[in-house]
Each structure stands twice: as C-alpha cells, then as structure tokens.
C-alpha cells in the first residue's frame, strides 16, 4: 500500500494523481493507471489515507465533464481511473450523513443519489448553460412502467404495468368503446371492445411509450374486459390505478416483443419500448429545479418522493393517524390533517428491475426510469425534458 506522499512533479501517463477530499481534509496520492487493482482495495486505501478505518464511505469522483459519479464497484472504479486526465478528484462522504436516515439499513454499499451529492458539492452555481446527463445505477431510480409476462402471453399481446406511485404525474389516458374483429369458428366476427382513445401529452401512459391510441384493452389486472361496459372498465382501471396492469393488443403490431430463445428477452423489450433496457434520466432537469437556492436541503426532497405505496398489491395501505388528547381537532385544516408526504419513507424497489443479462428468459423486462420529482414544479420540468432526453 502506498504511503501518504507528495505528488511527483513529473506527470507520467502511467500514474494517476488522486486528490481525495473528506470533510475539510484533503489527501493526495497516486495510483498506477495500468494496475488499478480492485475496488475494495481502493476503498481500504481511502480509509487508510484519511485515517478513518471504521467509517463507511460514499465515494464519488468528478469525471471529465465535471459531473460527480459514484465509485462503488470495480467497473466504475476502473472507468474513473482510465478517464482521469490527469487528476482524479475524489469526494468522500460519511454514509450516515449521506443517507439521511432512511437508507441506513442497507448492507451493501449503496450510493444514494450521487446526483444530489454532485449538486451539493460541485454545483453551487446553478446557471449552467448546458447541463450534462448523469447516469446512475438503475436501482437509484423508480420504475414507472414495465412489460410483464412476456413468456406467457401471445406475441400479439402486451401486458403493461404502470406504477402510479402517488406522484403528481397523471396516468394520462382515455378509453372508448369500439369494435374489433375476432376469428371465431364461425369465421370473422365483429365484437365490441374497449380501446385506448387518447393519451395525454406528458402523462405517464404516453411517456412510457408502451401504450398507444387504438390499442385494444383486453384485460385489467388479470380480469378480462370482454363483457364489461366502458363504465365498468373505467371503474376497474381507476380502482387499480395505483398499480395498473393493462393487457393490450397494440394497434401497431410491428414493435411486438419477439422471443428468440433465451438471450433476446431484454432486447425485444427494448425494441418494444423504443428505448434501451437501461434506465436513464436527465440530470439536467434536476439541476434546473434544484437551483434556486435549494442548497443542501434538496436531497431530502428527493428522498421524500419515494413513496411507500409503490409496491404492488399491498401498497394501498390506508393511512391511520392517531390523534392525541391535546390536539384541537376542530380547528385543524382537513388537508393538513392528512399529511400524505410526511409518512415514514421507506423506498422499495421493484425486484424485476434488476437487469441481469445472464438471466435466460427474462419474463419481466425493460423499463424506463425517471427520477421522482420532488414537487409539482419539478415534475413539469421533468416532463419537458423527458421528451428530449429520453426519446421513447
């Protein structure tokens, strides 16, 4: 292990100059670019040079664009080393502080919202002209939709799951009556059906790209809509709106998921959704809204938006508020009495979002993530930018 030492003045290509900041303290050292070693060794080194052997750390680095990116595995560690030109600037944080209580119980080194760290640490000036994109881990995002049950459905059908999450963004679609042609033993037959009639621009349904106008709705949360009226289907969808699973027969059959053996599940889904399986989002939107003097409080806003109700069926846990004797109930505002966003916040993530490329038949495939917006204003921003940055 290298000792703490001054940086050599002659910059050779083989050495990477490292400047590590922890709190108010800086440490400088160098690493061999060709032999960076493993991440856990590097982590140990950092603890050692800062003399904080028992402190759990969040490691971030500034990349060539000046963005703060996490270092938490071998891949991004190697990436950081290879792109450092020539100085590698590291920012260390105590995990407890960074996690703001809610994430503490995670045993893995989970880097929470590096974007927010970047915002705090690197970008006090907000008025940047062209905000760059921050790419983060899929698990740092919340799923908003997915195609599911690809392995059991006919190829002409698509089962789409929309996650409402109690966010402000509307589901944003309309349904209508119509008729479709079915093949029956008697030949072709016209039968009444329910169709998607309109997508609200910027709504959840539109932004996923998984539903389109004139798609025929076949099932709602596993219940066939065959003999049900438009009003019944409407009520069923609204009743399931927090976790809506719609099986449609897309009007456009060209983007169907095609199952070729094992490995193409994810790719097929990607084709269907028109985007890659990886989730991405624009850091830009984040910057622009966090800018106006939000300062260090911003991360907590973001955390707050991870609603506990995002998990599938048992999510609609009703809110029970115990009221104490001293409360003067009759004077309280009704709305204030139901503080839906001051609940204990325990984010959970969809297990099926883990994109394991090695996993053969991927039943639950790609999804598009977006940062949960901290407020309505941000939400709108997000919508605007989603349109350009994440093209679906």
């Amino acid at each position, binding site marked *: 292990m290298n000792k703490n030492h001054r940086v050599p003045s002659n910059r050779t290509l083989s050495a990477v100059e490292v400047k590590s900041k922890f709190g108010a303290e800086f440490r400088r050292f160098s690493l061999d670019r060709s032999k960076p070693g493993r991440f856990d060794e590097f982590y140990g080194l950092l603890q050692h040079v800062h003399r904080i052997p028992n402190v759990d750390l969040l490691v971030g680095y500034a990349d060539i664009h000046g963005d703060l990116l996490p270092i938490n595995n071998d891949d991004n560690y190697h990436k950081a080393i290879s792109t450092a030109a020539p100085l590698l600037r590291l920012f260390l944080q105590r995990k407890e502080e960074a996690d703001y209580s809610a994430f503490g119980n995670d045993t893995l080194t989970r880097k929470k919202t590096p974007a927010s760290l970047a915002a705090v640490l690197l970008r006090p000036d907000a008025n940047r002209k062209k905000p760059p994109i921050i790419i983060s881990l899929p698990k740092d995002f919340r799923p908003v939709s997915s195609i599911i049950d690809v392995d059991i459905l006919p190829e002409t059908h698509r089962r789409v799951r929309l996650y409402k999450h109690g966010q402000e963004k509307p589901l944003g679609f309309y349904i209508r009556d119509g008729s479709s042609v079915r093949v029956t033993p008697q030949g072709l037959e016209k039968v009444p059906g329910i169709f998607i009639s309109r997508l609200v621009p910027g709504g959840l349904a539109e932004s996923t790209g998984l539903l389109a106008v004139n798609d025929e709705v076949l099932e709602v949360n596993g219940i066939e809509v065959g003999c049900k*009226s*438009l009003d*019944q289907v*409407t009520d069923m969808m609204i009743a399931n709106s927090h976790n809506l699973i719609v099986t449609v027969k897309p009007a456009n059959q060209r983007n169907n998921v095609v199952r070729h053996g094992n490995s193409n599940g994810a790719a097929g889904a990607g084709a269907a959704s028109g985007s890659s399986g990886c989730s991405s989002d624009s850091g830009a939107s984040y910057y622009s809204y966090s800018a106006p003097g939000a300062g260090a409080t911003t991360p907590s806003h973001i955390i707050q938006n991870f609603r506990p109700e995002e998990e599938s069926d048992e999510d609609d846990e009703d809110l029970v508020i115990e*009221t104490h004797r001293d409360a003067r109930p009759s004077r309280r505002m009704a709305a204030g009495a*139901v503080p839906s966003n001051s609940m204990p916040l325990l984010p959970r993530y969809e297990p099926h979002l883990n994109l394991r490329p090695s996993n053969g038949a991927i039943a639950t495939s790609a999804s598009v993530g977006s940062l949960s917006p901290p407020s309505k204003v941000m939400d709108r921003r997000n919508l605007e930018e989603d349109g350009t940055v994440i093209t679906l």
Partner: protein
Amino acid sequence: MKHAFSPHLIQTVEHGFPSQPSALAYDPKLQVMAIGTKSGAIKVYGAPGVEFTGLHKDTATVTQIHFLQGQGWMVSLLDDNTMHLWETGQKERCSDLREVRSFSLPGRSGIESTSVTRVTVLLVKSSSDLLTLGTEGGGVHFLELPSLRLVDKSLFHDEIMQSVPEDYRCGKSLGPVEALQEHPLHAHKILIGYSRGLVVLWDFKSRHVDNLFLGKQQLESLVWVRSGSSFVSSHSDGGYMVWSVSSSTPCIQEPVTSTIPYGPFPCKAVTKILWRTTQAALVLFSGGMPRASYGDRHCLTILQDSVHVTLDFTSRVIDFFTVHHVDRDHELDDPSALVVLLEEELVVIDLQAAGWPTIPAPYLAPLHSSAITCSYHISNVPTRLWERVVSAGLQQCSAQTCTNWPICGGKNLAPAVKQRELLLTGHEDGTVRFWDASGVALQPLYKLSTASIFQIDCEHNDSFTQAAEEEWPPFRKVGCFDPYSDDPRLGVQKICLCKYSGKLVVAGTAGQVILMYLSDEKSDHMIDLATVDLLQDREGFTWKGHDRLPPKSGSVLFAPGFQPVVLVQCMPPAAVTSVTLHAEWNLVAFGTSHGFGLFDYHRRSPVLARCTLHPNDSLAMEGPLSRVKSLKKSLRQSFRRIRKSRVSGKKRGEANAQLAEQDSEVTPVQRRIEPRSADDSLSGVVRCLCFADTFLRDGTHHGPTMWAGTNSGCVYAYALDVPLQEKFSEQSVEALLGKEIQLMHRAPVVSIAVLDGRGNPLPEPYEVSRDLAKAPDMQSSHSVLIASEEQFKVFMLPKVSAKTKFKLTAHEGCRVRKVALVSFSSVASEDYSENGLVCLTNLGDIHVFSVPALRPQVRYDCIRKEDISGIASCVFTKTGQGFYLISPSEFERFSLSARVITEPQCQVYVERPYESSEVRCSAFFCF
C-alpha cells in the same frame, strides 16, 4: 349459510300506485277491480291483500279492460289494436293472471287504411259469450268468447243507413262507433252510438234496427237507465241528454231533456256519464267544465236532486265506476261507492254517507303525493311505538269515513304478520309519511309535516278562504296528490328513528336537523334553536346557495304525534347528507357537504363541529347552483344551437347526410382513467355517521365513539365522553378525535359499522339495557367495517390494522351504491341466523358477503343499471328484504332471504261454465 339465501332474488310485490294508469274495470260479481297501465300491465285488486298482476308481451298502452263477469276472465284492448284474453288462475298460494290468447281485427278487404278497423269500443255481453267491437270505420263486429273467434255477423254503416231518414243522412258517414251498451233487460239488444250523434238500438238476433235516435251533437258516451225505458247520452259540447225508448216510435228526433250543466258559455266535453237510480236519480259525469274559466281542471260532477258537488282533482280522470247492485232483484242501483281512477291516485267516495266523504284506500297509496326524497325502514317495531303512531294517525284523518272498503273480492290467505314493519318516506314538501310495510298492502299510518315550524312565504290560507266563498261551480278538493312544493328547502333528506324511545330526527335540504319526541297529547310550545357552524372559521369560502329556513318565533301548536323539540341548523345551510341518532346518549350527529356536527339534545348544546372541506374544493362552496357548471352548460348549449341553425340553413337531405356522416366521425364517448385525487370536487361530503360503544383508544377500555366517513375516503373516529344517565343535566358530553383513517384509494365511504368480538354488528341503543338483544361480546377485540364505493375493509380495533378486505370494483368493475348489514335466518331453523353484508352496486346487482370474513356468498340481478333513481332509492331491511322505486309512485319489494318473504297470498273464486281450453262449436250461438 347458503340455505339462508333465496336461490334467486324474488320480486314479491309492488307497493303504491301504478305509474301511468290508462284503463279501469270492475267486476261486480267477483268484486275485483283491474287497472291497466301504459306499460302494458294489468293489476287486479280485491280485498286488502288480494292483488295480482299480468303483463302484456308488448309494452303497449292498455286502453280498455272488460271483465267477463264472475268468470275470472277479462279482455284487454291495447293501443296497437290487439285484444287479449286474460285468465285468473291459481298458482301455489296466489292467484295469477295469464294471457290465454289474443286477437287483432283483420283489415277489411279493399280498404287500405288501417284506421278503419281500429277498435274504438268494446262491449262484453252479460252472457259473457260474445264480445262486441265498435271500430273507427263505424263497423260493429262480434267475437265469440272466450275463443276470440270472429263471428261473421258484422254490422256496417250501410245497413244502418237504410233505415235512417233521408234528411239526416246528408251524405256524410256516421263516424266511428263511440259507445256500445247492452239493453239492461233484453240482452239481445244493443245500443250503438256513432260519433256524429246517431244512436241506434239494434236487435242482433233479428238483425233489425229497433229505434233510431237522431242526435245532432257529437257523442261521447251512453248509459242505460236501469229500467231500460230510457238512456242518457253525453256530448262534446259539455251537455247530456236523456232519451226515452219506446217501441211505438222507431225514429226519435228529440231527447226528453237536454242539459249543459256548466253552460251557457262553451264547455268541454262530458267524456263519460253514469246514471244511477236511487230514491232520486244520481248523475255522475267527468268533464263538462266551462272551457274558458275552468277548462284546465280535472273534475267529476255528482248531481242528485239539488245537491251538486264538483270533485276537483289534481290529476286527470282516467275512468270511474260505481259499486252498486247489479242483480235483477233490486229495483234500484243504490250505488254505495264511486271509484275514480286518476292519473296519480285512486279516490273512492262513499255515496251513502251524507256529504259524500272519501274512503281511505287500503292499497294503491299515492306514495308520490309529494315526490319521495328519501326512505327509511324499521324492522320489528315494538307494539308500544306502533300503537302510538297508529293512534296519532287516526286523529289526523277525521274527514274520512270508516266505511268498509267497497272492493272486497277474493280472499287474503296470507298468515297474520308476526312482526310490524314501518317504512318512512321523506318528501319534497317537508313531510314524513309512515307506512305499514308489514304486509302486502302498504297502508298509510301517519303523516308528519315539518313545514309548520318555519316561516314560509306562501301559506295555504288563501286557498282556504277562497273555498269558503260561494262559488260556482261548487268545487271540492279531493285527493292528496300535490306535486308542488312550497319551498324546495323543506325537502327531507335523511331520517333516523329510535324505535324504543320514540325519538325521531328529520334532516332537510337547508341544513335543518329537527329532533322530535313522540307525544300522545297535543302541545303548544317553543322550539329550541341552535346553529352549528360547520366551516369552523375556514377562510376563503363564501356560500352562494340558498339561505337557511327562518324558524317561526313564538310557540307553535302541535297535534299528537311526533312533535319538534329542537331545531339545529347547519351553517352554511347545505343539504344534510347523513344523520344518526343515539337516544341513550342523547346525541344526534349530522353531516353536510362541509363537515359534520354532534349535538347533545338533552342539554341543547353542540358538542362538536368539524369541517371536512378540502381547500381546493370550490364546488362545495358554490352551493347547489354552481356557476362554473352552469356557465359550461350554457356555452355547450349555445354551441349546439349554432350548429343546429347552420344545418337548418342547408337543404334537408344534404344536411341529414352530413349529420349522419358527422355522427360516425364524431369521437365516441371516452372515459378518463385517473385515480381520485385529494382535491376532487365535493370531497368533503359526509356520507355516513355511526355511533358505537367500542374500543378506540386502547384495547381494555371501551366507550362511546362516533365515526364519520367522507366522499374522499376519509374516516374520523371520535371518542366520546358521555356522562352517566343521572348526570346528563350537569355534565356535558365531550368528543376527542381518536383516529383519522385515510383510505388510500380515496373512494367515498358509504357505510361504517362496528362489529363485536364475535363479528356481529353492535346492537341498537336500548336493546341491551332493555334486554331486547344479546349483549355484544366485549371480551375479544372489536373491528370496524368500512365500506367504500370501491372496496370493503375490516380493521381491527383499537389499532385500526387491516384484517380483511374485498376489492369489489377492481374485480367486478361495479361501484357500491348501498350497503346494509342483514341478518339472514335459516330456513331450517328459526333460531339460527347469520350476518351478511348486502351491497347494491351501480349496475343494479346485489352482492352478499359474509361478515367479517368478507367472502362473496351470492349475487342477484335486481335493478336495471339504467334505472338510476331506482338504485338511489333502494333500502334494505334488517331481515333481507328491500324496497326500491320502480316509478315515482311505486316501490318494488324484493327478498334475498329464503325465510322472510312478504308476497301476496290470495285466492279469487271464479265460476266458469267452461274452461278456456275447451273448443266450443259455433252452433252454441243462436242468433
């Protein structure tokens, strides 16, 4: 459990007055009456409890019904020109009505127009073997009965014309046949009246014109005088004529007398006249009012000697008949009663008592005398309350006679009722009517008016003073159908009655909550007033709706019965949406679209007021007339008008084609898929309230609680501190908010009920303290059942942790409209019963769930899903029956329980010379 449910929903009986009646008939031998309706139903009524119904296959208006006297057959004529023969049969425990066959007159060969063969009038001969029809074309046809086979003996104009004097003919036709009447003594002679005025006495045995009566006025109806020596004709000019019949003069030019009773100015037609012989002749006729001054009145005139009464009804006279002696032994008709079928009610006049008073009807109650706004059912009414209500009711109807009901045919076979049931209906005019719903016939018991405690501009006094004046015609207001409400704010919205203490809460449209005590003595007292501000200083809201009703100052005289004691008025005065009463705790809770309140009526003091408004909810503040809405509406209408006028400018065919095109292109109805949000409009409406003695604060101490549920899926639970009975006066009740539950799906909370440790609903107030019900299980933990429009959930108390749930809407796509906890008794054993949650959905079907497991048990189709008012009006009883309105005036009663069924069980004894199935040879006739 299954054996407690009826395998299918049984629609047992229709209570009330049939909607849109169109025909009336009476069988003097069987003493039963039949009413036909515009929807093609025939309803037969006899003695109370004797009623049965038949329905034509086609929904066409029944224009006439004629009994084949004493034989249980009747012939109906529909407006599609078909005739149907109905037969009264016996099916299990009840009589029923079956259509046997039908007939329609074939078009006359060579004449295209169908109106010629349109049947205008029917006559069933007293021998019941022949049906005579008169047609629009003036022909008279004969049908064999009961086979409805056309007999080739038809009589046409030309045959009559031969005997008509030349100068009367004028080349004109005689017009349609208006009336057919059989000679009272000679059954082979019939009187045929033609529209133009000619009346012919025709002997169809000899096919010969006996007499000609050359009337010159357009004919409306004919009636024989009992002796057969003369007949009376009524005319379109408002007059009637008496013609004498003598064999010596075959052609009579002039009537004996001719009167226009309401002349000399032009009068409306006398549509029907009856001439009954008593010591003095009794003339009854409908219509004939002076066109200009009273042309809009619906009147029936009774004339006898110098007595002249003009019965003034509030709805159109459909038909009428008298109940009188028909057998030949009696020399006189001596009518005992006049039965008048009006469009909205049935009125029966006692013709034998002086002053011709009305006889209260034991059935066909006009439920809608003022529009029904809500209903409330009480099962198993204690005898004491029942007697007091009945006696209060008897003191109200002094103007009516106690004569027996004249229509008394058939026999009611239903067993005597074991349990008294009350149905309370709230009306638009602020009245609450109490009905005996124990049996098949829904009988009025008592009527309560809440209008008397308010100052209302339009008092009734003026109409009384008018009546006192000497007036011609001598009008007498009869009937109780009165669709006009003095003030819409009086409308009753919610009712709650404590059957043990006789305390009643009536809550209305202007936020009034009236508490009443049942008293057997009349009383003159002041009412205590209180105002509860439900906005609770909430800023930024202004109420733009109606004002509250101004209460009368000073004392008010109240008749025996339910007497108002306390009036609580909510501010803002929005309609009360929920009310409940706990007489043992002296508490009444009420809710509006703004919040809810709790009132201690013993100390006359408000306990609690809570605003449930969401700050973004503008609609709630606008009052019932929303400006936002009306602006939208008017905009939409004006756009439509513009579009219409554009279309009319073009050529019609072109425009129509375009319209058709437009229709196909126009975007079809679409529905937005969006979860409910917190700031949906009217989210603060308090949908349900309930009191319960249960565990709210901790698992060891139970106590009084109050629960309120709102339109936005919020439930408030309050722990109440109710003093002991003896300290009611000193100590005040206190309410502390214990829990607030926000249902995540935010659907309106339809009902809340607390279940005891065994999962049974808590008993009603007083039931335990008076040993009327088993004490609830207070050992194991209680639970609360919250029913929203989308799902049912059972939460454990006091933690309010979800135990079971059923997501109805997510599964079925239907929404909950009404729920009730019902105790289903087993058919096998009377003692065994189980609780079920009964739920009526917006699709009109009924689901039953087990409680508290919430497992679906059974599903029934009940109401058509298009019948929104029917679904909204549904009430369930505690024993698995229910009522809903099938028209503004009729309740359909249904039963889910296999044990508790209230249905007609009756028998009508008929004597038929032959059965309808027997084919008789036509030689039976001897013309």
